[in-house]
């Protein structure tokens, strides 16, 4: 309870409002991170009501529900959240459950009668909630809330420290603390700390190594490694909307046909730039295919050419010339249109390391930036050569959820085709895929802000049967799943759609917002065709530039978000290297260390098991303990010479001195380190006169033995006095003996 009524403008009254602001901001941060506005609103209202009941009463914090009621409530909340967590397993469920529990706990604490320490607990819980929110989200709004909340939390904690200090000094009668004299001090200190802490925090942010230990303990949170760049090599449907609307330029591409050398492209024409092939699906995540055994690392120098497919192919070829607008991240794809046959790099600053898989046609380049390359692709439907064909999986694909399979069979059957791949002719697979594509285009709504699926639910199932709204990733995923349900092999392709044609320069400008996902369906052995189930009209409408005020504001927000994503969210080892002034070809000591730690991390990940985790934790604890011991030991040694415990005594005198101290300690008389022996003896004069007298004499002899030159007599006298004290002759009047 904070009793602050007598003074209107006291610190306690101000603190209450700051506390309320911190709590509400924490709940807001949680609801943004979890994309859970309804629960957030309910929690905020309940918390504010509790705060009003307890804090706006006459006694400030003394009203409210009693402790035993709040304890029961806490148990109920704990059970409810526990049940919820068990029912909603999935990536990030534990963090979400914990965050929800924290918010409920804060609300309960706002309703109960409070002591001063309860305010500290509420602040600590709010801090935990911020951490929980940060584990689950990285959005710009969340970042903005943190920017406001962190200094506010710091001020609240400082105010709390003053109030708690007063309560510690006067526990029976807490006194109101005038706010006016404290205000400039608190504001000044807060400013000072922000000014001092910001560069330190920024330095730590920049210097902490990136890329080490990624998912060492698995995907603990849903926001793990979340990057809001438009194109990723992994599509995580559990995260809701992450398709970038940024208009940042990514590539410029130009195309022409061979052998006619006719330029391709124009307004209204779209080309699909293949990036990654994602054919592994699990728990709402599409991830990259395992590289085929035929994939090979290739090192490119300037102008070097590499052919993926050395078989003789006749037909039309398409030449794609790409100029990247920004240094791509590690493992950036080498884009192609259709299936690539060869790649050739332009002028490169240093050699380019690439991995090329001729089976999937996926080319990725690792460290070593090159901004220009040319890719030759086959336009016509020509199957892969025999030696490059993977195992045909038609009819032997893993079954998706029963509802999805039923829907797919129903749609195929409605097209007059047999859903059973064993009976259906292979030639009908293209028709079946076309039917599914049309079904998705006509019956589902395209949106860039789809609702996040429940944690336990399969996102594709949620999209097909519940929300019926989503962006291209949901459409592509649904089509791939439905195709697989009727035995047709299908995979999701992540890349860009080149649609913004610059007539003057005869090339396409590709922006982040052009990121797209579509589907490739295996319609014949070694032949993959492109299908795009995303409604094309709606896709064009969303991609169109908005000119209204709201649209402009939206674009402004988009630009800010782009900066946020570029500078904070997507800050990685490349950004770090650029910021620290190291180019890709200039590995420093830190680079080598990071590289080694990354390799070790990967090696450890591949071999880690629970036992190794326990051993690792144990080793870390032992090392930490040894570190603490070492620091303490060094600190003690450092402090040793200034301790007034006879440091300047000669070694024999020191021995007698230490013996004396041990004798005194056994009698319950601990001489403080700072106090000379003679002064300590003087202090005992009142309570232990005889002992004090003997000690004084012993001290004088010790000093004489050490500082007046060699005097064996003095040392002998001191030793004799020590023995007397030990035997009790020097403590006759000691009341405690």
């Amino acid at each position, binding site marked *: 309870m904070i009793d602050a009524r007598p003074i209107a403008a006291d610190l306690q009254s101000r603190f209450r409002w700051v506390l309320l602001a911190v709590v509400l901001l924490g709940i807001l941060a949680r609801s943004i991170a979890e994309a859970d506005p309804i629960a957030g609103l309910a929690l905020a209202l309940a918390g504010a009501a509790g705060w009003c009941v307890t804090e706006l009463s006459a006694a400030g914090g003394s009203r409210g529900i009693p402790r035993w009621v709040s304890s029961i409530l806490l148990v109920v909340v704990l059970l409810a959240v526990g049940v919820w967590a068990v029912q909603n397993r999935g990536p990030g469920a534990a963090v979400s459950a914990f965050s929800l529990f924290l918010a409920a706990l804060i609300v309960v604490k706002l309703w109960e009668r409070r002591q001063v320490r309860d305010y500290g607990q509420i602040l600590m819980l709010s*801090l935990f909630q911020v951490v929980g929110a940060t584990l689950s989200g990285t959005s710009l709004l969340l970042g903005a809330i943190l920017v406001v909340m962190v200094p506010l939390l710091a001020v609240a904690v400082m105010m709390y*420290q003053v109030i708690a200090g007063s309560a510690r*000094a006067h526990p029976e009668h807490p006194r109101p603390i005038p706010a006016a004299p404290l205000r400039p001090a608190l504001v000044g200190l807060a400013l000072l700390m922000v000014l001092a802490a910001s560069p*330190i925090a920024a330095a730590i942010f920049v210097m902490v190594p990136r890329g080490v230990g990624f998912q060492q303990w698995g995907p603990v949170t849903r926001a793990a490694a979340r990057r809001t760049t438009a194109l990723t090599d992994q599509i995580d449907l559990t995260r809701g909307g992450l398709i970038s609307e940024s208009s940042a330029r990514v590539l410029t591409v130009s195309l022409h046909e061979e052998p006619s050398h006719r330029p391709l492209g124009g307004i209204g024409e779209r080309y699909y730039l293949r990036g990654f092939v994602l054919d592994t699906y699990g728990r709402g995540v599409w991830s990259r295919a395992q590289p085929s055994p035929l994939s090979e690392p290739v090192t490119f120098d300037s102008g070097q050419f590499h052919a993926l497919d050395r078989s003789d192919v006749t037909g039309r070829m398409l030449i794609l010339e790409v100029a990247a607008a920004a240094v791509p991240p590690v493992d950036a794809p080498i884009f192609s249109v259709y299936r690539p046959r060869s790649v050739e790099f332009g002028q490169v600053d240093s050699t380019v390391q690439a991995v090329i898989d001729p089976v999937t046609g996926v080319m990725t380049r690792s460290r070593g930036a090159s901004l220009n390359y040319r890719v030759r692709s086959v336009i016509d439907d020509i199957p892969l050569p025999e030696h490059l064909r993977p195992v045909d999986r038609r009819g032997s694909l893993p079954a998706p959820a029963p509802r999805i399979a039923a829907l797919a069979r129903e749609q195929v059957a409605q097209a007059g085709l047999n859903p059973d791949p064993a009976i259906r002719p292979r030639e009908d697979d293209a028709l079946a895929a076309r039917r599914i594509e049309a079904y998705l285009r006509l019956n589902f709504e395209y949106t860039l802000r789809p609702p996040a699926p429940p944690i336990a639910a399969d996102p594709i199932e949620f999209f097909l049967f519940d929300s019926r709204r989503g962006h291209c990733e949901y459409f592509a995923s649904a089509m791939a799943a439905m195709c697989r349900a009727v035995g047709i092999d299908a995979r999701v392709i992540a890349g860009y759609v080149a649609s913004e044609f610059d007539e003057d320069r005869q090339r396409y400008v590709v922006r982040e917002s052009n990121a797209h996902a579509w589907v490739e369906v295996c319609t014949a052995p070694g032949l993959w065709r492109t299908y795009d189930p995303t409604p094309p009209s709606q896709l064009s409408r969303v991609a169109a530039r908005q000119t209204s005020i709201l649209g402009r504001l939206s674009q402004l927000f988009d630009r800010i978000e782009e900066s946020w994503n570029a500078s904070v969210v997507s800050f990685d080892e490349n950004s770090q290297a650029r910021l620290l002034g190291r180019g890709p070809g200039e590995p420093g000591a830190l680079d080598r260390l990071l590289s080694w730690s990354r390799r070790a991390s990967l090696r450890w990940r591949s071999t880690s098991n629970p036992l190794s985790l326990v051993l690792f934790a144990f080793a870390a604890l032992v090392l930490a303990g040894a570190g603490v011991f070492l620091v303490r030991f060094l600190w003690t040694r450092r402090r040793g010479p200034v301790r007034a415990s006879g440091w300047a005594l000669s070694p024999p005198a020191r021995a007698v001195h230490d013996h004396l101290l041990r004798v005194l300690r056994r009698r*319950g008389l601990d001489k403080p380190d700072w106090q000379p022996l003679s002064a300590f003896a003087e202090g005992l004069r009142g309570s232990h006169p005889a002992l004090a007298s003997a000690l004084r004499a012993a001290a004088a002899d010790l000093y004489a033995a050490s500082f007046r030159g060699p005097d064996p007599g003095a040392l002998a006298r001191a030793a004799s006095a020590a023995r007397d004290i030990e035997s009790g002759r020097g403590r006759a009047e000691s009341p405690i003996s």
Partner: protein
Amino acid sequence: MPDRAQTPPGFPSLAPEPAQVVSRRYHLHPPGFAYAGVAVVLFLGAVNGQNNLLFWLFGLAAAGLIVSGFVSGAVLMRLRLERITPPVAQVDAPLAITYRLRNTARFIPALALIVEELTPQRQDSSRLAPGRAFAAHVPARGEVTVESTGEALRRGHADLSLVRVWTTFPFGLMKKSVTFRQDERLLVRPPVPDVPASVLGLRPRGYAGLESRRPLRTGEEFHSLREYAPGDSTRRIAWKASARRGVLISREHSGRHLPRLWITPVADPDPARTDAVAAAAAGVASLALRRGLAVGLALGTLSVMPIDGPRHLAAILDALARWDHAPGAAETPPGLRPDDQRLFVAAPGASVPAADLLITTDQAGVAVRPLPGARRRALLTRAVRSIRSAVGLSA
């Protein structure tokens, strides 16, 4: 050490010297551990998820720790303290100790400072339980005066030496302290309990009781002048005559002779019971002085001659505070007159020589106080019982 009782009552301390800094320390503090734990979780979460917001929060957490340590340490580096103690203290009366805090830092204010005396480790012999003082704010280059309210536990000389100023400001992560040394000795008087008036009317061994013979001050007449003798009341000094002769002259009155009461406290082997005896003696002396008797104290070298008047109580209390005699030895009053009354105050069961009056501590209504250590143990026992009953175990 200067004896605080030597300073005249009501005068400030004779030791205005600022206390010397003895040590500065950073103490481990549970919230600091929690904070460090959160920072470690932040770091691990950031590494595992490569979540840059977590990296940013971790940076802030580390920066907060560094800045917090710097700010609080800088504040305490520039703090000066001076303790102002009262001349005497009394058991069962509030003990107010004033501290003057000066912040010599140029820019950084000091906030949330708690000032406390470092009591001796041997609590059983502690005579004081000083309270804590709190300074919400000491501005840069400013000074504040704060006061702690504690209590004196046992009569006698109490030594004050080390004062610790500590704070957990700004974030409560670490407890920083600076210890000052300012040696002082404080005389703690025994408590003055309300003794029932009836105890002076008791008649042991044929004694008629003091109450019946109590002379009233009315009706006394001037008899003569004589030279001042130590112990005479200042109200009896004839100032004009003293001025004429150049020496202090006291008035003597005729009428019934004022009965003089010698109180002899009897020490006990148990220090707590001896303290109770001293308290009972103080209560009896207070009662007798209020009733108009001249009261003296037979305490050997600390004896106080019988004088009447309420102000005489201070001298009696000071003597009782210093009383530290071996148990069992009842002192003979110096200058005992035949018509003086002797009164012994003893613990029940004590062997007391024949006296006009014997008052035991229980008759005086004075209970034996447990020593501070015993009291602490009792509190601990009670706390353990509370915890056991709270968790459902039998108390």
